């Protein structure tokens, strides 16, 4: 059984300068209450690893707008012109990573693998500065694992011991980032009794979740 945290309490646990893996895809399945609490507490110098930088002023976009972000590792900033503008102005460092490479690098971090060997990016700008490994005559980029100080996960349901399940496309990066954060904080929409999520329906086992947020309003 776990004690739940209010979003403000979770935001207090996350120091300035921390690296955060954040779930969601264009905000869908993103831990919105946790991100808003980080904005509210005036977080600074965060490194954010996430699929995208969301829409302007919302979710990750709100963190960007508030000046909380020093660096992003992401696959897409195209739907948030503010991130692009801040990148061009040199206010935010952005490392652009192909989406399939990004999620696999995070998985490698969480799964204890030394890196990812992918054909994606070979012969493009993405190859610059990277090791190329040949396996049986085929060439692959060696992409390094990613881990972070915190993983902020949004779930549809959690049970009392932290098992999580996700709904539809709100799943996306969430189960993978939950493996790669030193501390894993889950923001559930609802909290149900232990046993109410059948074993085959658990998408992230409670054993790797450190903290649960209060349920959504």
């Amino acid at each position, binding site marked *: 059984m776990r004690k739940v945290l209010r979003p403000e309490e979770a935001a207090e646990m996350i120091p300035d300068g921390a690296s955060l893996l954040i779930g969601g*895809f*264009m*905000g*869908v*399945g993103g831990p919105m209450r946790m991100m808003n609490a980080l904005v509210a507490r005036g977080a600074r110098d965060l490194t954010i690893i996430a*699929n*995208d930088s969301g*829409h302007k002023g919302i979710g990750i976009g709100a963190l960007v707008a508030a000046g909380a972000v020093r660096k992003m590792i*992401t*696959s*897409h*900033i*195209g*739907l948030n012109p503010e991130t*692009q503008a801040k*990148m*061009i102005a040199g206010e935010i460092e952005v490392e*652009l990573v*192909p*989406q*399939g*490479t990004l*999620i*696999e690098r995070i*998985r490698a971090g969480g799964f204890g693998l030394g890196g990812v060997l*992918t*054909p*994606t*990016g*070979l*012969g*493009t*700008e*993405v190859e610059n500065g990277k090791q190329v490994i040949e396996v049986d005559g085929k060439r692959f980029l060696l992409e390094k694992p990613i881990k972070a100080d915190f993983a902020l996960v949004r779930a*549809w349901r959690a049970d009392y011991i932290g098992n999580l399940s*996700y*709904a*539809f*496309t*709100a*799943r*996306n*990066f*969430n*189960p*993978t980032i939950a493996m790669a954060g030193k501390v894993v904080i889950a923001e559930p929409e609802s909290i149900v009794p232990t046993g109410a999520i059948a074993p085959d329906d658990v*998408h992230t086992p409670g054993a790797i979740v450190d903290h649960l947020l209060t349920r959504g309003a």
Partner: protein
Amino acid sequence: MEPKELIARRVALELKAGMLVNLGIGLPSMVARFVPSGHGIFFQTENGFIGTGGRPPEGMEDPHLTDAGAGFVMAEPGAATIDSTMVFGLIRGGHMDLTVLGGLQVDEAGQLANWQVPGKMVPGMGGAMDLVTGAAAVIVAMQHSAKGEARVVRKCTLPLTSLRRVDLVVTDMAVLKPTEAGLVLRERAPGVSVEDIVAQTEARLIVEGDIPEMKLA
């Protein structure tokens, strides 16, 4: 007919029952409108779903069920949620039978640039590099020229998306087949002459025999 609709209708003819298909955002996503009902095609969306349908009825939208641009979608019967590692496992592993993507430039080598205009538009590559590298077949769906500038060029001047030669290019003027020998002109849009096409194309085209008009249904 609008140029975009013409392109989408022509591309739709390439989709067959049983195929797993990814449609990029923008023009490519229009293709789904022109496949017959009961089509038996598996449409995958990059944010983690197989079997997306059109927009839900008013009031039935679920914020957990969206396309890659965070727009509401429906689920077809037999739909399946997948996480982001699986999305790109399907893509990189060659399980994705076909992807349809927009383009900024395609060149005589059949290579595509579609993710960046350095210094002007840096949205990030999202899943495009993985898709072009890994999908079994890649169709580029784009307008033949933009603001008077040719997009079918001798050699891409914009950063490449992948070294891979794409399989088909469908524009509002022509259908082009990239081959080892170069770009073969396969079909003309209704009412468009071979001379018109050549005039608006920077790349050298291989034109052999009679070039038929596109079929659109």
